[in-house]
């Protein structure tokens, strides 16, 4: 018998892999990680490393336990670990962070079938669980050993008037470790667009809508609402998560507008000063419906009413 491979065409594949995409996301998040160390000290790096390591370990153990193929080499757990850590302040106790990782990897991702099957962004689920469980720890921005003054308490969203443009751009204020340095986040976002990992549609539409509506609803200065809080981190790195965002360009626009609307509503009228997390999670839930509404129309397709059989 022949030993030659008889696979179906095509017989060549592009070099792009899931792993290389995740690696690009990690590279894109690196400037923000460096900024977090500069701003808040080495504990920021430590928290990030622990979070990544724990996420990978959890995924590995879960898959081993359930005798499923181990997929940690796709690096998606590393990305989740990074994003969970980016959502906590530098003073966060480690065990609380690990609870967030657990929620992200097990609750949001693996219980639904792993990569590609989760319907909510794992890192944001981790953040929400931490937000409700450890509200005080998650919103206490003290204990910094970096550039940011440890005594600084009010975030730019809570007290928008107290910070200048440069302080917002470089993140010289209290906040969670990954979201404050706008310049680093934008740099990573540009990298992701150039590398073709994400399309700029969701970030641009989302940020644009938020800025416009917070200005219209509450008169917040546009630049301020764009640079402050978790909007950049959320819009560039979380709302663009393939699995939990619409698959067509049209759908991405609708998604971006929806996220912007919810974020603006929460920021202006809500009890929380930050609306990004809830907006994206709500948006995630709508994705299947948006996908249904925005299916592509194949070129040459007859009108849908007509049903035909076979080729």
């Amino acid at each position, binding site marked *: 018998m022949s030993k030659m491979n008889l696979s179906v065409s095509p017989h060549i594949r592009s070099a792009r892999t899931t792993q290389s*995409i995740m690696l690009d996301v990690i590279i894109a998040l690196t400037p923000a990680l460096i900024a977090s160390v500069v701003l808040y000290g080495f504990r920021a790096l430590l928290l990030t490393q622990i979070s990544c390591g724990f996420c990978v370990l959890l995924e590995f153990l879960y898959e081993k336990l359930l005798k499923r193929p181990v997929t940690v080499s796709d690096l998606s757990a590393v990305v989740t670990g990074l994003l969970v850590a980016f959502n906590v302040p530098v003073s966060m106790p480690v065990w609380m962070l690990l609870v967030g990782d657990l929620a992200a990897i097990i609750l949001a991702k693996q219980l639904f079938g792993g990569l590609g099957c989760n319907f909510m962004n794992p890192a944001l689920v981790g953040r929400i669980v931490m937000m409700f469980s450890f509200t005080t720890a998650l919103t206490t921005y003290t204990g910094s050993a970096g550039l940011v003054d440890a005594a600084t308490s009010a975030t730019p969203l809570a007290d928008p008037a107290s910070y200048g443009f440069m302080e917002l751009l470089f993140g010289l204020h209290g906040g969670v470790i990954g979201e404050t340095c706008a310049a680093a986040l934008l740099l990573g976002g540009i990298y992701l667009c150039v590398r073709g990992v994400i399309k700029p549609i969701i970030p641009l539409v989302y940020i644009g809508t938020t800025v416009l509506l917070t200005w219209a609803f509450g008169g917040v200065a546009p630049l301020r609402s764009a640079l402050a809080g978790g909007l950049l981190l959320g819009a560039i790195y979380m709302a663009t998560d393939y699995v939990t965002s619409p698959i067509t360009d049209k759908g991405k626009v609708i998604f971006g507008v929806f996220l912007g609307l919810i974020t603006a509503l929460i920021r202006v009228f809500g009890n929380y000063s930050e609306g990004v997390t809830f907006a994206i999670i709500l948006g995630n839930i709508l994705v299947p419906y948006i996908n249904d509404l925005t299916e592509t129309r194949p070129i040459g397709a007859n009108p849908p009413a007509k049903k035909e059989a076979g*080729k």
Partner: protein
Amino acid sequence: MAPRFLRSIHVPHFKNTQDSVPARFFEVKSVTIPMSMHIGAPARPVVKVGEHVKTGQLIGEAGGFVSAPIHASISGTVKKIDNLLLAGGGTCQAVTIESDGLNEKAEGLKPPELTDLDSFIQAVRDCGAVGLGGAGFPTSVKLKVDPARVEYILINGAECEPYITSDTHTMRDNPKRIRTGLDALKRFFPQAQIYIGIENNKPEAIRTMREYTDRVELCDVVELPSSYPQGGEKVLIYNTTGRVVPEGKLPLDVGCIVLNATTLACIGKYLMTGEPLTSKCITIDGSAVKNPQNLIVPVGAMIREIVEHIGGLKCEPAKALYGGPMMGTAIPDLDQPILKNTNAVLILDEKDAKIPEPGPCIRCGRCIDTCPLHLMPTELEQACLKKDVKRLSELKINLCMECGSCSFVCPAKRNLVESHKLAKQYVREAGVK
């Protein structure tokens, strides 16, 4: 506004053989000629075992309207007529001829006399022409139409598949044949606009074709972008005429006839010499081949013999293909004949033969952004896994041309084309019930 060109992707070109002027290799020991190298009814053998045949002699007559005659490609003795397992999975009769080493031409091969359209169509039929781009649809059937309906005749010289350069060489080396074919088309389809579509990475072919069609009215060479799949029939029609072939319709329904450049050259050769289609220019390439090159070989020549003739292989072959890497068919071994519609044989080493393991779909949407016809490959795959025939029809699985772009770009390395082929079968079966 509608885009000028349909979506396409950059695949590696690998046109290693573009400067390899094809040599002739007719000193084969034997040929095995299947009676089915076209879509439609297989040809019926008209020779007997032990009979002596000469090059160009009819050995299989067309088995129906949608069929094509088949001719001896070398001179020699008919050794056997038996069943052959084709690479596609079917079987058909095949005539094996043992060479007498003389390669004598059959007597009485003379250019046909063209008086009217019917005589031209008969000539196209007699020369055994089938769609040489790969489909193998009998060309005479395509041309048997009311000339008033034909607004465009498109000559497909795109050759968008990686590696393959045989069409390019036919255009470069035998422009006279193409011109003769074009003249006949012009004579019998006088009002049709002819476009010769060639990708812009083949400047030599474009230049030669321009030279040979200079001052021919209503005949232009169209430079296409060098991106895949320019040579897909629907893609070529759109990119040259802006027309869309509707679901379930033929190119003719939008006034188009598409002919492969090599098919036209083969018709032209018959009109000039009366010699039917018995040899093919093929590209032999791939990481396992020592000396990749173009070669003109008799139809039915065995791949193993050809490979040995050009210096053999570097290593144990791990995969061999009829055609290019995007749409070609894998064959089980090298003991397979060259068919009329074989334009390349690729033999790959272990590394190139390896297809990466598929991972879970991450819903990145690259397949949707890539599909030239705006289908949703990942949704089609999901519907296929569920055998959801209704959903497959809604998503227009029947429009998929299996160009392979979606599988190529998929970062999760999912075998989308494989699932689409399976899905079409599900829809067919459901339609039969």
